[in-house]
């Protein structure tokens, strides 16, 4: 038996604080957006919710799964799990956006925002396919 194996995967690909900081950062973005829209109170509620989630992620550092997903113990299996989870979330988002777009149209609205989001998603998907096809 060999004394030591060669490292086969990128570990970790994110730091210990990546997930809590990302979560809290999203809350700050929402707070600023809500404040710009004139509803700072709603922004504070949203930011507080994200802050609670960030603290929970930080406190759950002892959980192996969360450490893996957050990147602390990330390896090829967690990377694959993340890719599949992102793909699943993307499908859910796509269905939700199409449904919301259809609802907007049925209400006599132009559904403009959803049109843009769907278009952006489609362009992003095609661009990723072209990019990855040449590199995979």
């Amino acid at each position, binding site marked *: *038996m060999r004394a030591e*194996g*060669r*490292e*086969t*995967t990128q570990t970790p690909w994110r730091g210990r604080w990546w997930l809590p900081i990302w979560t809290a950062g999203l809350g700050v973005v929402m707070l600023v957006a809500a404040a710009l829209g004139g509803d700072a109170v709603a922004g504070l509620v949203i930011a507080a919710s994200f802050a609670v989630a960030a603290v929970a992620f930080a406190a759950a550092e002892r959980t192996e*799964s969360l450490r893996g997903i957050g990147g602390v113990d990330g*390896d090829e*299996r*967690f990377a694959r799990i993340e890719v599949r989870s992102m793909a699943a979330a993307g499908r859910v988002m796509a269905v939700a956006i199409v449904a919301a777009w259809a609802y907007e149209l049925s209400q006599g609205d132009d559904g403009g925002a959803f049109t843009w989001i769907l278009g952006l998603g489609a362009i992003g998907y095609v661009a990723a396919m072209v990019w990855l096809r040449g590199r995979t």
Partner: protein
Amino acid sequence: MRNEVRKLRAEAGLSQQELGDAMGVSRQTINSIEKERYTPSLPLALNLARYFSKRVEEVFDDES
């Protein structure tokens, strides 16, 4: 995919954590490989086989 990782690890007297550390992956990943829920990448499969001084087809078998 069937594999002999659990048997080889036990014969070597290693814990899942120790083998995971040697391979650069988590204990959970070693556990998933042993339970045949996760098929490792080619580099990891090769590395596992080399670690136990086996050929990769002696450790992993996709025909069973």
